[in-house]
């Protein structure tokens, strides 16, 4: 396969695994385009389209679309029959979707009643990641401040826009990957044929879908299918009511459950000076500060693209702040430390990235610096003629993005700024 084909394949994959457009519902308004944090969206011929190479899967467009035309990609519930032995990985945010939930075991038993053979909580994986984080921080091999890599939208953003900060990234698998790895390997050890085992994650967000499908830091994905929290919610509600025998299978710690909320991960590091930022714009500000040489006194930085943390994911059903309140209530009932790496008989390496993340050059104007400089100068001279009000009429999120599109060949070079044209017409 040639390089171009490979790039194409990755792009198609990303399209399948982040967000898709329902063209019938898209009205061509510019809401998503204006707010996309990487300016990946354009409105062309009255419909929004995503330049997937710039998409970080944050789900902001899904959240904001007033017409619900943006659909987060995930596997359908029908894929439950794809495997003989089904392991489900529920994330901490899932438990906060339910009103008056007094016992997490009700949700876990509900999942078993739905046909899953085994439950492995992502929060448990989070406990191991927290412990491994501490070990790595104490080794001092990663320059401070250490950046969390649990939110795949943030990791993707750093790989695209903040190449400087790559060395600060915590080289640990995300809790969901750890949970999947342990659960799958345990099942194989118990004699279940590998091809029969299906690991299902219930995702709160599209970023996790593409991260798990494409694999971040892993050689090959441990998770086989990614379901949405809202689908799981719809299926769980009816069966949870009718449960008669509730087995005590929950093995979450308060720290593990806390990972569902912004600051949960940072708190679990037990470090004195930590930052936890949530919401994609706030995260970008922190990354910029770090890039400008600030925040050198900080030990650990947790960043979550969604407001509130994973509870804010767009595939959840409940409001993030309501979910957060419920998780706080549940956290109080849980023990502090119950899952330790020592019990697993594993070394820290087991939790580390199996392969490095790759930097992405999606914003570079040209590989040749001379050509890139020329393009930049042309952009600057086009900018001088533009109204610089970022009205979005042209279908680009800003005048600068419009100028870039002209230079990059996304738009024909002679395309006129519609706002300027209209104003010139009016003044005649």
């Amino acid at each position: 396969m040639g390089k171009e084909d490979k790039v194409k394949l990755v792009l198609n994959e990303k399209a399948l695994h982040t967000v898709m457009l329902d063209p019938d519902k898209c009205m061509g308004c510019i809401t998503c385009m204006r707010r996309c944090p990487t300016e990946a969206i354009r409105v062309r011929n009255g419909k929004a389209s995503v330049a997937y190479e710039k998409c970080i899967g944050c789900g902001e467009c899904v959240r904001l679309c007033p017409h619900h035309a943006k659909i987060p990609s995930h596997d359908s519930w029908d894929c439950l029959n794809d495997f003989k032995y089904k392991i489900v990985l529920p994330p901490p945010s899932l438990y906060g979707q339910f009103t008056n939930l007094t016992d997490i075991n009700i949700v876990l038993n509900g999942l078993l009643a739905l046909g899953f053979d085994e439950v492995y909580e992502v929060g448990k994986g989070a406990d191991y990641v927290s412990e491994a984080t501490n070990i790595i921080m104490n080794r001092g091999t990663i320059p401070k401040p250490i950046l969390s890599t649990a939110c795949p939208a943030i990791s993707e953003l750093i790989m695209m826009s903040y190449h400087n900060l790559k060395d600060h990234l915590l080289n640990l698998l995300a809790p969901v990957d750890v949970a999947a790895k342990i659960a799958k390997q345990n099942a194989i050890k118990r004699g279940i044929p590998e091809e029969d085992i299906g690991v299902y994650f219930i995702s709160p967000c599209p970023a996790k879908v593409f991260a798990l499908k494409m694999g971040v830091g892993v050689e090959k994905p441990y998770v086989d299918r990614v379901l949405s929290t809202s689908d799981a919610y719809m299926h769980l509600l009816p069966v949870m009511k009718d449960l008669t025998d509730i087995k005590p299978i929950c093995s979450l710690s308060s720290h593990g459950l806390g990972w569902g909320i912004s600051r949960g991960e940072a708190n679990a590091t037990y470090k004195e000076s930590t930052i936890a930022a949530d919401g994609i714009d706030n995260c970008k500000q922190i990354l910029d500060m770090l890039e400008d040489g600030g925040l050198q006194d900080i030990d650990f930085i947790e960043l979550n693209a969604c407001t509130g943390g994973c509870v804010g994911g767009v595939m959840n059903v409940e409001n993030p702040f309501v979910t957060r309140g419920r998780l706080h209530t549940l956290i109080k009932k849980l023990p502090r430390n119950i899952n330790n790496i020592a019990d697993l008989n594993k070394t820290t390496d087991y939790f580390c990235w199996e392969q490095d993340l790759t930097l992405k050059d999606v914003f570079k104007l040209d590989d040749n610096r001379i050509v890139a400089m020329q393009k930049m100068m042309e952009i600057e001279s086009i900018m001088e003629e533009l109204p610089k009000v970022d009205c979005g009429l042209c279908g680009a999120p800003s005048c600068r993005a419009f100028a870039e599109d002209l230079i990059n060949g996304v738009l024909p070079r002679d395309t006129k700024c519609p706002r300027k044209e209209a104003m010139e017409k009016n003044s005649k």
Partner: protein
Amino acid sequence: MSESIHLVFNVDGNNFASAGTASEEVKSKLKMIGISSADIRRVAIAMYEGEINMVIHAGGGEAIVDIFLDRIEILLADHGKGIEDIEQAMQPGWSTAPDDIRALGFGAGMGLPNMKKYTDEFRIDSTVGVGTNVYMTIKFN
């Protein structure tokens, strides 16, 4: 084609939140041109520090930036109170901040030394009562 990308920024002395705007925009341009991340980091640190200095000490000023193929030249010009003793101001740890402010972690006196450290050429011209010009050049790898 002219030789450089010429950019002029007003650094607002009354608005602390706006400090960093110029370095943000320069950073984004350098990324698009494909300058190495290590060089971008040097530019970001030196320029951000300079912008902050203009806001804190000089009531704002102008940042004039020229991006060449092989280097970036930055002039930070203000009409503030000027620096009396430049050599002293360049000493690591020297600061105009009073002790109680320093006890809070501000005014560590590393601003100018850091700017010098991350640049290939660094020069200050200052006249008390008139203003300060800081010239910085960073060569690209």
